Protein backbone atom coordinates (compact mmCIF):
# COMPACT_ATOMS: atom_id res chain seq x y z
CA UNK A 1 0.00 0.00 0.00
CA UNK A 2 1.22 3.47 -0.77
CA UNK A 3 2.38 5.87 1.83
CA UNK A 4 0.25 8.95 2.02
CA UNK A 5 1.89 12.27 1.18
CA UNK A 6 0.08 14.13 3.93
CA UNK A 7 1.36 11.88 6.67
CA UNK A 8 4.82 11.09 5.43
CA UNK A 9 6.19 14.27 6.95
CA UNK A 10 5.33 13.18 10.46
CA UNK A 11 7.34 9.95 10.71
CA UNK A 12 10.43 11.69 9.35
CA UNK A 13 10.47 14.08 12.25
CA UNK A 14 9.71 11.30 14.68
CA UNK A 15 13.11 9.94 15.66
CA UNK A 16 14.67 13.36 15.84
CA UNK A 17 12.02 14.66 18.18
CA UNK A 18 11.95 11.70 20.47
CA UNK A 19 14.85 12.86 22.63
CA UNK A 20 13.56 16.35 23.40
CA UNK A 21 10.03 15.18 23.83
CA UNK A 22 10.98 12.54 26.34
CA UNK A 23 12.20 15.19 28.74
CA UNK A 24 8.97 16.93 29.52
CA UNK A 25 5.39 15.72 29.68
CA UNK A 26 5.82 14.83 26.10
CA UNK A 27 2.93 14.29 23.77
CA UNK A 28 1.16 17.34 25.13
CA UNK A 29 2.77 20.70 25.68
CA UNK A 30 5.61 20.81 23.13
CA UNK A 31 4.25 22.09 19.88
CA UNK A 32 4.75 20.10 16.71
CA UNK A 33 5.02 21.72 13.32
CA UNK A 34 1.27 21.79 12.78
CA UNK A 35 -0.50 22.13 16.06
CA UNK A 36 -2.58 25.24 16.40
CA UNK A 37 -4.72 24.83 19.48
CA UNK A 38 -3.16 22.22 21.65
CA UNK A 39 -3.76 22.59 25.29
CA UNK A 40 -4.08 19.16 26.71
CA UNK A 41 -4.82 18.40 30.26
CA UNK A 42 -6.27 15.70 32.36
CA UNK A 43 -9.10 15.72 34.76
CA UNK A 44 -7.14 15.95 37.96
CA UNK A 45 -9.06 13.57 40.13
CA UNK A 46 -8.93 10.76 37.60
CA UNK A 47 -5.27 11.04 36.68
CA UNK A 48 -3.30 8.09 37.88
CA UNK A 49 -0.18 8.70 35.97
CA UNK A 50 2.96 10.11 37.47
CA UNK A 51 3.33 13.83 37.05
CA UNK A 52 -0.31 14.78 37.40
CA UNK A 53 -1.81 17.23 34.93
CA UNK A 54 -1.86 20.89 34.22
CA UNK A 55 -5.23 22.50 34.93
CA UNK A 56 -7.45 23.12 31.92
CA UNK A 57 -7.18 26.65 30.50
CA UNK A 58 -10.80 27.66 30.66
CA UNK A 59 -12.19 24.60 32.35
CA UNK A 60 -14.55 23.75 29.48
CA UNK A 61 -13.79 20.37 27.99
CA UNK A 62 -14.63 19.64 24.36
CA UNK A 63 -16.54 16.53 25.38
CA UNK A 64 -18.00 15.73 28.73
CA UNK A 65 -20.15 12.90 29.97
CA UNK A 66 -21.40 13.70 33.47
CA UNK A 67 -22.81 10.76 35.44
CA UNK A 68 -24.22 9.44 32.17
CA UNK A 69 -26.41 6.39 32.42
CA UNK A 70 -27.94 4.63 29.45
CA UNK A 71 -30.54 1.92 29.66
CA UNK A 72 -32.04 0.03 26.76
CA UNK A 73 -35.27 -1.87 26.61
CA UNK A 74 -34.57 -5.41 25.53
CA UNK A 75 -36.88 -7.13 23.05
CA UNK A 76 -38.06 -9.47 25.79
CA UNK A 77 -39.34 -6.49 27.77
CA UNK A 78 -36.51 -6.26 30.28
CA UNK A 79 -34.17 -3.34 30.81
CA UNK A 80 -30.49 -3.51 30.05
CA UNK A 81 -28.12 -0.96 31.56
CA UNK A 82 -25.26 -0.31 29.17
CA UNK A 83 -23.63 2.55 31.04
CA UNK A 84 -23.86 3.56 34.67
CA UNK A 85 -22.74 6.91 36.09
CA UNK A 86 -20.04 7.34 33.53
CA UNK A 87 -17.84 10.43 33.80
CA UNK A 88 -15.58 11.32 30.94
CA UNK A 89 -13.82 14.54 29.95
CA UNK A 90 -11.93 15.12 26.79
CA UNK A 91 -10.16 18.44 26.28
CA UNK A 92 -10.09 20.23 22.93
CA UNK A 93 -7.48 18.59 20.72
CA UNK A 94 -7.08 15.62 23.02
CA UNK A 95 -6.98 12.06 21.73
CA UNK A 96 -8.77 9.84 24.20
CA UNK A 97 -8.96 6.08 23.79
CA UNK A 98 -11.64 4.08 25.55
CA UNK A 99 -10.87 0.43 26.18
CA UNK A 100 -12.91 -2.18 27.90
CA UNK A 101 -14.12 -5.73 27.61
CA UNK A 102 -16.71 -6.81 25.09
CA UNK A 103 -20.18 -5.49 25.83
CA UNK A 104 -19.16 -2.84 28.35
CA UNK A 105 -20.97 -0.05 26.53
CA UNK A 106 -17.94 1.48 24.82
CA UNK A 107 -19.88 2.24 21.67
CA UNK A 108 -22.79 3.63 23.66
CA UNK A 109 -20.59 6.43 24.96
CA UNK A 110 -20.05 7.50 21.37
CA UNK A 111 -23.75 7.47 20.57
CA UNK A 112 -24.39 9.71 23.58
CA UNK A 113 -21.79 12.27 22.58
CA UNK A 114 -22.79 12.29 18.92
CA UNK A 115 -26.47 12.72 19.76
CA UNK A 116 -27.54 9.48 18.08
CA UNK A 117 -28.86 8.42 21.49
CA UNK A 118 -29.84 10.45 24.52
CA UNK A 119 -28.64 9.47 27.99
CA UNK A 120 -31.27 7.97 30.29
CA UNK A 121 -29.79 9.94 33.20
CA UNK A 122 -26.91 12.35 33.50
CA UNK A 123 -25.65 14.58 30.74
CA UNK A 124 -23.63 14.60 27.57
CA UNK A 125 -22.01 17.96 26.88
CA UNK A 126 -20.10 19.39 23.96
CA UNK A 127 -18.10 22.50 24.80
CA UNK A 128 -20.15 22.80 27.97
CA UNK A 129 -23.54 22.68 26.25
CA UNK A 130 -25.89 19.70 26.54
CA UNK A 131 -26.20 17.57 23.43
CA UNK A 132 -29.76 17.83 22.13
CA UNK A 133 -29.42 16.20 18.75
CA UNK A 134 -26.83 15.48 16.15
CA UNK A 135 -24.25 18.21 16.45
CA UNK A 136 -22.70 19.48 13.21
CA UNK A 137 -19.31 19.68 14.92
CA UNK A 138 -19.26 15.93 15.43
CA UNK A 139 -17.73 13.38 13.08
CA UNK A 140 -18.27 9.64 13.50
CA UNK A 141 -16.38 6.71 12.08
CA UNK A 142 -18.16 3.39 12.39
CA UNK A 143 -16.88 -0.06 13.10
CA UNK A 144 -18.42 -1.62 10.03
CA UNK A 145 -18.27 -0.09 6.60
CA UNK A 146 -20.67 2.81 6.54
CA UNK A 147 -19.56 4.29 3.23
CA UNK A 148 -22.48 4.17 0.82
CA UNK A 149 -21.90 1.26 -1.54
CA UNK A 150 -24.01 2.78 -4.32
CA UNK A 151 -21.94 5.96 -4.50
CA UNK A 152 -18.56 6.33 -6.12
CA UNK A 153 -15.59 7.08 -3.90
CA UNK A 154 -15.72 10.74 -4.87
CA UNK A 155 -19.45 11.04 -4.21
CA UNK A 156 -19.02 9.32 -0.89
CA UNK A 157 -16.45 11.83 0.27
CA UNK A 158 -18.46 14.74 -1.13
CA UNK A 159 -21.59 13.51 0.69
CA UNK A 160 -20.98 15.47 3.91
CA UNK A 161 -20.55 18.91 2.29
CA UNK A 162 -23.44 18.18 -0.10
CA UNK A 163 -25.71 17.19 2.82
CA UNK A 164 -24.74 20.43 4.49
CA UNK A 165 -25.77 22.47 1.51
CA UNK A 166 -22.46 23.14 -0.23
CA UNK A 167 -22.61 23.59 -4.02
CA UNK A 168 -21.88 20.53 -6.09
CA UNK A 169 -18.77 21.83 -7.80
CA UNK A 170 -17.25 23.12 -4.59
CA UNK A 171 -18.03 19.89 -2.73
CA UNK A 172 -16.44 17.80 -5.49
CA UNK A 173 -13.30 19.94 -5.45
CA UNK A 174 -13.06 19.60 -1.71
CA UNK A 175 -13.61 15.86 -1.94
CA UNK A 176 -10.81 15.53 -4.51
CA UNK A 177 -8.55 17.37 -2.14
CA UNK A 178 -9.40 15.03 0.72
CA UNK A 179 -8.96 11.96 -1.45
CA UNK A 180 -5.48 13.22 -2.24
CA UNK A 181 -4.81 13.61 1.47
CA UNK A 182 -5.75 10.01 2.20
CA UNK A 183 -3.77 8.82 -0.81
CA UNK A 184 -6.69 7.79 -2.99
CA UNK A 185 -6.19 10.13 -5.95
CA UNK A 186 -7.05 8.17 -9.07
CA UNK A 187 -9.72 6.10 -7.34
CA UNK A 188 -12.44 8.76 -7.56
CA UNK A 189 -14.74 6.78 -9.83
CA UNK A 190 -14.40 3.41 -8.14
CA UNK A 191 -17.22 1.90 -6.18
CA UNK A 192 -16.56 0.90 -2.58
CA UNK A 193 -16.76 -2.83 -3.31
CA UNK A 194 -13.95 -2.44 -5.80
CA UNK A 195 -11.56 -1.27 -3.08
CA UNK A 196 -9.61 -3.17 -0.46
CA UNK A 197 -10.64 -2.99 3.18
CA UNK A 198 -7.87 -0.54 3.98
CA UNK A 199 -8.82 1.72 1.11
CA UNK A 200 -12.48 1.68 2.16
CA UNK A 201 -11.39 2.78 5.64
CA UNK A 202 -9.48 5.67 4.09
CA UNK A 203 -12.59 6.65 2.14
CA UNK A 204 -14.51 6.59 5.42
CA UNK A 205 -11.79 8.67 7.04
CA UNK A 206 -11.91 11.28 4.27
CA UNK A 207 -15.72 11.23 4.35
CA UNK A 208 -15.69 12.00 8.06
CA UNK A 209 -12.83 14.50 8.14
CA UNK A 210 -14.01 16.54 5.15
CA UNK A 211 -16.59 18.11 7.47
CA UNK A 212 -13.68 19.23 9.66
CA UNK A 213 -15.23 18.01 12.90
CA UNK A 214 -14.08 19.47 16.19
CA UNK A 215 -15.23 16.29 17.86
CA UNK A 216 -14.34 12.95 16.35
CA UNK A 217 -15.96 9.71 17.47
CA UNK A 218 -14.32 6.50 16.34
CA UNK A 219 -15.91 3.13 17.05
CA UNK A 220 -13.30 0.41 16.58
CA UNK A 221 -12.83 1.73 13.06
CA UNK A 222 -9.87 -0.46 12.16
CA UNK A 223 -10.82 -3.71 13.88
CA UNK A 224 -11.69 -5.40 10.59
CA UNK A 225 -8.28 -4.75 9.04
CA UNK A 226 -5.29 -7.04 9.06
CA UNK A 227 -2.45 -5.97 11.34
CA UNK A 228 -0.15 -4.43 8.71
CA UNK A 229 -2.91 -2.49 7.00
CA UNK A 230 -4.24 -1.37 10.34
CA UNK A 231 -0.89 0.10 11.35
CA UNK A 232 -0.61 2.00 8.09
CA UNK A 233 -4.11 3.42 8.44
CA UNK A 234 -3.42 4.27 12.10
CA UNK A 235 -0.40 6.29 11.03
CA UNK A 236 -2.48 8.05 8.44
CA UNK A 237 -5.12 8.82 11.03
CA UNK A 238 -2.50 10.36 13.33
CA UNK A 239 -1.11 12.46 10.47
CA UNK A 240 -4.55 13.74 9.53
CA UNK A 241 -5.48 14.33 13.15
CA UNK A 242 -2.38 16.48 13.64
CA UNK A 243 -3.61 18.77 10.86
CA UNK A 244 -6.95 19.75 12.36
CA UNK A 245 -6.62 18.42 15.90
CA UNK A 246 -10.18 17.48 16.75
CA UNK A 247 -10.94 16.09 20.19
CA UNK A 248 -11.15 12.33 19.68
CA UNK A 249 -12.87 9.53 21.50
CA UNK A 250 -11.50 6.33 20.04
CA UNK A 251 -13.19 3.15 21.18
CA UNK A 252 -11.19 -0.03 20.80
CA UNK A 253 -10.70 -3.41 22.40
CA UNK A 254 -7.07 -3.38 21.31
CA UNK A 255 -4.94 -1.93 24.09
CA UNK A 256 -1.88 -1.58 21.87
CA UNK A 257 -3.84 0.52 19.42
CA UNK A 258 -5.19 2.63 22.27
CA UNK A 259 -1.75 3.42 23.70
CA UNK A 260 -0.13 3.94 20.30
CA UNK A 261 -2.71 6.53 19.27
CA UNK A 262 -3.99 8.26 22.36
CA UNK A 263 -3.01 10.92 24.89
CA UNK A 264 -5.22 9.30 27.45
CA UNK A 265 -6.56 5.80 27.90
CA UNK A 266 -9.82 5.30 29.77
CA UNK A 267 -10.54 1.80 31.05
CA UNK A 268 -14.19 0.88 31.42
CA UNK A 269 -15.53 -1.80 33.71
CA UNK A 270 -17.47 -4.76 32.45
CA UNK A 271 -21.10 -3.78 31.78
CA UNK A 272 -22.84 -1.76 32.98
CA UNK A 273 -19.83 0.27 31.98
CA UNK A 274 -18.36 2.96 34.12
CA UNK A 275 -14.87 4.43 34.25
CA UNK A 276 -12.50 2.17 36.14
CA UNK A 277 -9.37 4.19 35.67
CA UNK A 278 -7.72 6.76 33.43
CA UNK A 279 -4.11 6.70 32.25
CA UNK A 280 -2.11 9.45 30.61
CA UNK A 281 0.00 8.31 27.69
CA UNK A 282 3.09 10.51 27.77
CA UNK A 283 4.65 9.18 24.61
CA UNK A 284 6.14 11.74 22.25
CA UNK A 285 4.40 12.91 19.12
CA UNK A 286 4.48 12.66 16.20
CA UNK A 287 4.33 8.92 16.61
CA UNK A 288 4.88 6.04 14.28
CA UNK A 289 2.68 3.23 15.49
CA UNK A 290 4.82 0.42 14.12
CA UNK A 291 7.80 1.58 16.17
CA UNK A 292 6.34 3.19 19.23
CA UNK A 293 5.34 -0.13 20.70
CA UNK A 294 8.97 -1.10 21.08
CA UNK A 295 9.74 1.81 23.39
CA UNK A 296 10.27 0.90 27.04
CA UNK A 297 7.74 3.52 28.12
CA UNK A 298 5.14 1.94 25.87
CA UNK A 299 5.75 -1.47 27.39
CA UNK A 300 5.59 0.03 30.87
CA UNK A 301 2.25 1.71 30.12
CA UNK A 302 0.92 -1.41 28.50
CA UNK A 303 1.69 -3.48 31.55
CA UNK A 304 0.15 -0.97 33.89
CA UNK A 305 -3.07 -0.53 31.90
CA UNK A 306 -3.36 -4.23 31.16
CA UNK A 307 -3.21 -5.00 34.87
CA UNK A 308 -6.21 -2.70 35.27
CA UNK A 309 -8.05 -4.06 32.25
CA UNK A 310 -7.34 -7.74 32.87
CA UNK A 311 -9.85 -8.25 35.67
CA UNK A 312 -12.61 -6.74 33.56
CA UNK A 313 -11.73 -8.82 30.53
CA UNK A 314 -11.67 -11.97 32.62
CA UNK A 315 -14.99 -11.15 34.18
CA UNK A 316 -16.56 -10.43 30.80
CA UNK A 317 -15.16 -13.63 29.40
CA UNK A 318 -16.39 -15.65 32.35
CA UNK A 319 -19.86 -14.18 31.88
CA UNK A 320 -20.04 -14.90 28.20
CA UNK A 321 -18.48 -18.34 28.49
CA UNK A 322 -20.63 -19.18 31.48
CA UNK A 323 -17.65 -20.55 33.37
CA UNK A 324 -16.37 -19.71 36.80
CA UNK A 325 -14.17 -16.59 36.78
CA UNK A 326 -11.13 -18.60 37.85
CA UNK A 327 -11.11 -20.84 34.79
CA UNK A 328 -11.54 -18.09 32.26
CA UNK A 329 -9.10 -15.98 34.20
CA UNK A 330 -6.20 -18.34 33.92
CA UNK A 331 -6.72 -18.87 30.23
CA UNK A 332 -6.89 -15.19 29.51
CA UNK A 333 -3.94 -14.24 31.61
CA UNK A 334 -1.85 -16.58 29.53
CA UNK A 335 -3.20 -15.17 26.34
CA UNK A 336 -2.52 -11.67 27.56
CA UNK A 337 1.11 -12.23 28.41
CA UNK A 338 1.68 -14.24 25.26
CA UNK A 339 0.54 -11.49 22.95
CA UNK A 340 2.67 -9.05 24.88
CA UNK A 341 2.91 -5.32 24.39
CA UNK A 342 5.37 -5.46 21.51
CA UNK A 343 3.69 -8.38 19.80
CA UNK A 344 1.28 -8.14 16.93
CA UNK A 345 -1.32 -10.27 18.63
CA UNK A 346 -4.83 -9.45 19.65
CA UNK A 347 -6.12 -10.11 23.07
Amino acid at each position, binding site marked *: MRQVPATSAAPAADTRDKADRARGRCGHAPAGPVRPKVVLTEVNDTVRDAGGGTPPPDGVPAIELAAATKRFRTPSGGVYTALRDLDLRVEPGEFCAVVGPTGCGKSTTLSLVSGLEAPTAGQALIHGKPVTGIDPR*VGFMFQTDAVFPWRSVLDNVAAGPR*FRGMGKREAIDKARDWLRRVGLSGFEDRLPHQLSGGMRKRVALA*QTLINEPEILMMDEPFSALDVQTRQIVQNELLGLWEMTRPAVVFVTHDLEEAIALADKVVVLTVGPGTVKDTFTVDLPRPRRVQEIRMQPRFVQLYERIWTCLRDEVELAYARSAGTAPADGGVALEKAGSASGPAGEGQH
Partner: protein
Amino acid sequence: MAAETLTRPGPADTDEATAARAARSRRRNRRLLILGAQVLIVVVVIGGWQLGAERGWLDKFTYGSPSGVVSQLKTWFSQGTATGSIWHNIAVTMQETVLGFLIGTVAGVVLGILLGRFRALADVAAPFIKAGNSIPRVVLGSIFIMWFGLGPSGKVALAVVLVFFSVFFNAFQGTREVDRNFIANARILGASEWRVTTQVVLPSAMTWIVASLHAAFGFALIGAIVGEVLGAQAGLGQLIEQAQENFNANGVYAGIIIIAALALIAEFLITRFEMRVLRWRPSELSGDAAGL
Protein backbone atom coordinates in the same frame (compact mmCIF):
# COMPACT_ATOMS: atom_id res chain seq x y z
CA MET B 1 6.21 -11.77 -6.98
CA ALA B 2 7.78 -10.35 -10.13
CA ALA B 3 10.95 -12.33 -9.69
CA GLU B 4 8.96 -15.49 -9.24
CA THR B 5 7.13 -15.09 -12.50
CA LEU B 6 10.33 -14.26 -14.31
CA THR B 7 12.18 -17.33 -13.12
CA ARG B 8 9.24 -19.59 -13.80
CA PRO B 9 9.94 -21.61 -16.96
CA GLY B 10 7.95 -21.20 -20.15
CA PRO B 11 5.86 -24.40 -20.08
CA ALA B 12 3.69 -22.96 -17.32
CA ASP B 13 2.40 -20.37 -19.78
CA THR B 14 1.59 -22.91 -22.45
CA ASP B 15 -0.10 -25.05 -19.84
CA GLU B 16 -2.30 -22.19 -18.89
CA ALA B 17 -3.05 -21.35 -22.49
CA THR B 18 -4.00 -24.94 -23.24
CA ALA B 19 -6.18 -25.13 -20.17
CA ALA B 20 -7.92 -21.90 -21.13
CA ARG B 21 -8.52 -23.18 -24.66
CA ALA B 22 -9.88 -26.45 -23.36
CA ALA B 23 -12.20 -24.63 -20.97
CA ARG B 24 -13.44 -22.41 -23.78
CA SER B 25 -14.25 -25.30 -26.05
CA ARG B 26 -15.95 -27.14 -23.19
CA ARG B 27 -18.11 -24.12 -22.59
CA ARG B 28 -18.95 -23.82 -26.29
CA ASN B 29 -19.91 -27.49 -26.52
CA ARG B 30 -22.13 -27.18 -23.51
CA ARG B 31 -23.90 -24.16 -24.98
CA LEU B 32 -24.50 -26.00 -28.25
CA LEU B 33 -25.86 -29.01 -26.39
CA ILE B 34 -28.31 -26.90 -24.42
CA LEU B 35 -29.44 -25.03 -27.53
CA GLY B 36 -29.92 -28.30 -29.36
CA ALA B 37 -32.06 -29.70 -26.55
CA GLN B 38 -34.20 -26.56 -26.51
CA VAL B 39 -34.77 -26.68 -30.27
CA LEU B 40 -35.67 -30.35 -29.98
CA ILE B 41 -38.31 -29.64 -27.33
CA VAL B 42 -39.91 -26.93 -29.50
CA VAL B 43 -39.92 -29.18 -32.58
CA VAL B 44 -41.41 -32.11 -30.68
CA VAL B 45 -44.15 -30.07 -28.99
CA ILE B 46 -45.18 -27.88 -31.95
CA GLY B 47 -44.62 -30.64 -34.49
CA GLY B 48 -46.56 -33.13 -32.40
CA TRP B 49 -49.39 -30.66 -31.99
CA GLN B 50 -49.51 -29.94 -35.73
CA LEU B 51 -49.28 -33.62 -36.62
CA GLY B 52 -51.95 -34.54 -34.10
CA ALA B 53 -54.28 -31.88 -35.45
CA GLU B 54 -53.77 -32.97 -39.06
CA ARG B 55 -54.17 -36.65 -38.36
CA GLY B 56 -57.27 -36.02 -36.32
CA TRP B 57 -55.83 -37.27 -33.01
CA LEU B 58 -56.56 -33.85 -31.62
CA ASP B 59 -59.85 -32.13 -32.32
CA LYS B 60 -58.96 -29.04 -34.36
CA PHE B 61 -62.10 -27.29 -33.23
CA THR B 62 -61.19 -27.62 -29.56
CA TYR B 63 -57.41 -27.56 -29.60
CA GLY B 64 -56.61 -25.56 -32.72
CA SER B 65 -53.38 -26.16 -34.57
CA PRO B 66 -50.06 -24.32 -34.96
CA SER B 67 -50.78 -23.53 -38.59
CA GLY B 68 -54.20 -22.22 -37.59
CA VAL B 69 -52.61 -19.99 -34.96
CA VAL B 70 -50.14 -18.65 -37.52
CA SER B 71 -52.87 -17.89 -40.04
CA GLN B 72 -54.94 -16.21 -37.31
CA LEU B 73 -51.94 -14.02 -36.46
CA LYS B 74 -51.49 -13.24 -40.15
CA THR B 75 -55.13 -12.22 -40.44
CA TRP B 76 -54.92 -10.02 -37.37
CA PHE B 77 -51.78 -8.27 -38.47
CA SER B 78 -52.78 -7.86 -42.14
CA GLN B 79 -56.54 -7.31 -42.00
CA GLY B 80 -57.07 -6.21 -38.40
CA THR B 81 -59.62 -7.49 -35.92
CA ALA B 82 -63.29 -6.89 -35.28
CA THR B 83 -62.34 -4.06 -32.91
CA GLY B 84 -59.83 -2.20 -35.06
CA SER B 85 -56.25 -2.99 -36.06
CA ILE B 86 -54.25 -5.40 -33.93
CA TRP B 87 -51.81 -2.60 -33.13
CA HIS B 88 -54.62 -0.58 -31.67
CA ASN B 89 -55.58 -3.50 -29.45
CA ILE B 90 -51.96 -4.02 -28.37
CA ALA B 91 -51.62 -0.31 -27.67
CA VAL B 92 -54.75 -0.27 -25.51
CA THR B 93 -53.60 -3.22 -23.43
CA MET B 94 -50.06 -1.92 -23.08
CA GLN B 95 -51.30 1.51 -22.12
CA GLU B 96 -53.42 0.03 -19.35
CA THR B 97 -50.60 -2.25 -18.24
CA VAL B 98 -47.86 0.36 -18.19
CA LEU B 99 -50.03 2.97 -16.54
CA GLY B 100 -51.16 0.50 -13.89
CA PHE B 101 -47.59 -0.66 -13.40
CA LEU B 102 -46.24 2.86 -12.96
CA ILE B 103 -48.99 4.10 -10.65
CA GLY B 104 -48.92 0.90 -8.58
CA THR B 105 -45.13 0.93 -8.34
CA VAL B 106 -44.88 4.57 -7.31
CA ALA B 107 -47.67 4.15 -4.76
CA GLY B 108 -46.14 0.94 -3.42
CA VAL B 109 -42.65 2.44 -3.11
CA VAL B 110 -43.84 5.67 -1.51
CA LEU B 111 -46.13 3.97 0.97
CA GLY B 112 -43.67 1.14 1.64
CA ILE B 113 -40.87 3.55 2.47
CA LEU B 114 -43.16 5.79 4.48
CA LEU B 115 -44.45 2.96 6.64
CA GLY B 116 -40.99 1.42 6.81
CA ARG B 117 -39.52 4.67 8.10
CA PHE B 118 -42.26 5.49 10.61
CA ARG B 119 -43.04 2.65 12.92
CA ALA B 120 -46.18 4.25 14.35
CA LEU B 121 -47.66 4.71 10.89
CA ALA B 122 -46.96 1.08 10.10
CA ASP B 123 -48.69 -0.02 13.27
CA VAL B 124 -51.75 2.06 12.44
CA ALA B 125 -51.92 0.88 8.83
CA ALA B 126 -51.11 -2.79 9.43
CA PRO B 127 -54.66 -4.17 9.82
CA PHE B 128 -55.93 -2.25 6.78
CA ILE B 129 -53.07 -3.40 4.60
CA LYS B 130 -53.60 -6.97 5.71
CA ALA B 131 -57.33 -6.75 5.06
CA GLY B 132 -56.76 -5.20 1.64
CA ASN B 133 -54.23 -7.82 0.76
CA SER B 134 -56.55 -10.66 1.73
CA ILE B 135 -59.20 -9.66 -0.85
CA PRO B 136 -58.86 -11.77 -4.00
CA ARG B 137 -57.93 -8.97 -6.40
CA VAL B 138 -59.69 -10.40 -9.43
CA VAL B 139 -63.12 -9.83 -7.92
CA LEU B 140 -62.24 -6.15 -7.72
CA GLY B 141 -62.36 -6.20 -11.51
CA SER B 142 -66.14 -6.44 -11.39
CA ILE B 143 -66.34 -3.57 -8.94
CA PHE B 144 -64.08 -1.42 -11.09
CA ILE B 145 -66.22 -2.09 -14.18
CA MET B 146 -69.19 -0.79 -12.21
CA TRP B 147 -67.24 2.22 -11.05
CA PHE B 148 -65.31 3.12 -14.20
CA GLY B 149 -67.37 1.55 -17.01
CA LEU B 150 -65.88 -0.33 -19.94
CA GLY B 151 -63.09 2.18 -20.66
CA PRO B 152 -59.43 1.67 -19.81
CA SER B 153 -59.54 3.28 -16.33
CA GLY B 154 -61.11 0.21 -14.73
CA LYS B 155 -58.33 -1.99 -16.11
CA VAL B 156 -55.70 0.45 -14.95
CA ALA B 157 -57.25 0.39 -11.48
CA LEU B 158 -57.17 -3.39 -11.37
CA ALA B 159 -53.53 -3.41 -12.50
CA VAL B 160 -52.67 -0.77 -9.87
CA VAL B 161 -54.18 -2.84 -7.08
CA LEU B 162 -52.33 -5.95 -8.19
CA VAL B 163 -48.99 -4.16 -8.59
CA PHE B 164 -49.29 -2.12 -5.44
CA PHE B 165 -49.23 -4.96 -2.94
CA SER B 166 -46.35 -6.82 -4.48
CA VAL B 167 -44.21 -3.67 -4.63
CA PHE B 168 -45.39 -2.34 -1.29
CA PHE B 169 -44.32 -5.35 0.76
CA ASN B 170 -40.88 -5.39 -0.81
CA ALA B 171 -40.36 -1.65 -0.41
CA PHE B 172 -41.50 -1.90 3.21
CA GLN B 173 -39.20 -4.81 3.97
CA GLY B 174 -36.32 -3.21 2.07
CA THR B 175 -36.72 -0.03 4.11
CA ARG B 176 -36.72 -1.97 7.36
CA GLU B 177 -33.58 -3.80 6.34
CA VAL B 178 -31.49 -0.73 5.55
CA ASP B 179 -28.23 -0.93 7.47
CA ARG B 180 -28.62 1.28 10.56
CA ASN B 181 -25.03 2.38 10.12
CA PHE B 182 -25.76 3.93 6.73
CA ILE B 183 -28.55 5.98 8.25
CA ALA B 184 -26.52 7.00 11.28
CA ASN B 185 -23.59 7.90 9.07
CA ALA B 186 -25.72 10.05 6.76
CA ARG B 187 -27.34 11.82 9.70
CA ILE B 188 -23.99 12.61 11.26
CA LEU B 189 -22.64 13.80 7.94
CA GLY B 190 -25.45 16.33 8.00
CA ALA B 191 -28.29 14.78 6.00
CA SER B 192 -31.83 15.89 6.73
CA GLU B 193 -34.50 13.22 7.17
CA TRP B 194 -35.63 13.84 3.59
CA ARG B 195 -32.12 13.33 2.27
CA VAL B 196 -31.68 10.23 4.40
CA THR B 197 -34.83 8.86 2.81
CA THR B 198 -34.05 9.75 -0.79
CA GLN B 199 -30.31 9.24 -0.79
CA VAL B 200 -29.78 6.41 1.65
CA VAL B 201 -33.00 4.50 2.24
CA LEU B 202 -34.22 4.52 -1.35
CA PRO B 203 -31.00 3.35 -3.02
CA SER B 204 -30.47 0.81 -0.28
CA ALA B 205 -34.01 -0.56 -0.51
CA MET B 206 -33.75 -0.57 -4.30
CA THR B 207 -32.40 -4.11 -4.26
CA TRP B 208 -35.67 -5.27 -2.75
CA ILE B 209 -37.87 -3.00 -4.83
CA VAL B 210 -36.35 -3.96 -8.15
CA ALA B 211 -36.69 -7.63 -7.29
CA SER B 212 -40.46 -7.10 -6.99
CA LEU B 213 -40.75 -5.28 -10.33
CA HIS B 214 -40.40 -8.46 -12.37
CA ALA B 215 -43.42 -9.98 -10.70
CA ALA B 216 -45.18 -6.62 -10.59
CA PHE B 217 -45.15 -6.18 -14.36
CA GLY B 218 -46.64 -9.61 -14.76
CA PHE B 219 -49.38 -8.61 -12.31
CA ALA B 220 -50.03 -5.39 -14.23
CA LEU B 221 -50.51 -7.41 -17.40
CA ILE B 222 -52.83 -9.83 -15.60
CA GLY B 223 -54.82 -6.87 -14.26
CA ALA B 224 -55.25 -5.34 -17.69
CA ILE B 225 -56.11 -8.63 -19.44
CA VAL B 226 -58.52 -9.83 -16.78
CA GLY B 227 -60.18 -6.43 -16.80
CA GLU B 228 -60.60 -6.69 -20.55
CA VAL B 229 -61.93 -10.23 -20.41
CA LEU B 230 -64.54 -9.06 -17.91
CA GLY B 231 -65.69 -6.37 -20.32
CA ALA B 232 -63.98 -3.95 -22.67
CA GLN B 233 -64.24 -2.22 -26.05
CA ALA B 234 -60.71 -3.04 -27.17
CA GLY B 235 -57.55 -4.79 -26.02
CA LEU B 236 -55.92 -8.20 -26.17
CA GLY B 237 -58.03 -9.58 -23.34
CA GLN B 238 -61.13 -8.56 -25.22
CA LEU B 239 -59.77 -10.27 -28.39
CA ILE B 240 -59.22 -13.47 -26.46
CA GLU B 241 -62.68 -13.22 -24.98
CA GLN B 242 -64.20 -12.70 -28.45
CA ALA B 243 -62.29 -15.69 -29.81
CA GLN B 244 -63.47 -17.82 -26.91
CA GLU B 245 -67.09 -16.85 -27.51
CA ASN B 246 -66.75 -17.81 -31.18
CA PHE B 247 -65.10 -21.10 -30.23
CA ASN B 248 -62.03 -19.97 -32.09
CA ALA B 249 -59.27 -21.84 -30.26
CA ASN B 250 -56.63 -20.50 -32.63
CA GLY B 251 -57.64 -16.95 -31.75
CA VAL B 252 -57.17 -17.64 -28.03
CA TYR B 253 -53.71 -19.10 -28.63
CA ALA B 254 -52.75 -16.22 -30.92
CA GLY B 255 -53.76 -13.74 -28.24
CA ILE B 256 -51.72 -15.65 -25.66
CA ILE B 257 -48.68 -15.61 -27.92
CA ILE B 258 -48.86 -11.86 -28.41
CA ILE B 259 -49.21 -11.31 -24.66
CA ALA B 260 -46.28 -13.61 -23.95
CA ALA B 261 -44.13 -11.73 -26.45
CA LEU B 262 -45.02 -8.41 -24.81
CA ALA B 263 -44.26 -9.82 -21.36
CA LEU B 264 -40.86 -11.03 -22.56
CA ILE B 265 -40.00 -7.62 -24.00
CA ALA B 266 -41.04 -5.97 -20.74
CA GLU B 267 -39.00 -8.48 -18.74
CA PHE B 268 -35.96 -7.67 -20.86
CA LEU B 269 -36.44 -3.95 -20.25
CA ILE B 270 -36.87 -4.44 -16.51
CA THR B 271 -33.71 -6.54 -16.36
CA ARG B 272 -31.86 -3.73 -18.15
CA PHE B 273 -33.26 -1.27 -15.62
CA GLU B 274 -32.25 -3.56 -12.78
CA MET B 275 -28.69 -3.81 -14.03
CA ARG B 276 -28.58 -0.05 -14.34
CA VAL B 277 -29.83 0.81 -10.85
CA LEU B 278 -27.95 -1.97 -9.13
CA ARG B 279 -24.67 -1.62 -10.99
CA TRP B 280 -23.02 -0.57 -7.74
CA ARG B 281 -23.39 -4.08 -6.42
CA PRO B 282 -20.60 -6.61 -6.79
CA SER B 283 -21.22 -8.30 -10.14
CA GLU B 284 -21.46 -11.84 -8.80
CA LEU B 285 -24.54 -10.81 -6.85
CA SER B 286 -26.49 -8.90 -9.49
CA GLY B 287 -25.28 -11.20 -12.29
CA ASP B 288 -27.06 -14.20 -10.84
CA ALA B 289 -30.36 -12.41 -10.64
CA ALA B 290 -30.21 -11.56 -14.34
CA GLY B 291 -29.66 -15.22 -15.27
CA LEU B 292 -33.26 -16.34 -15.06
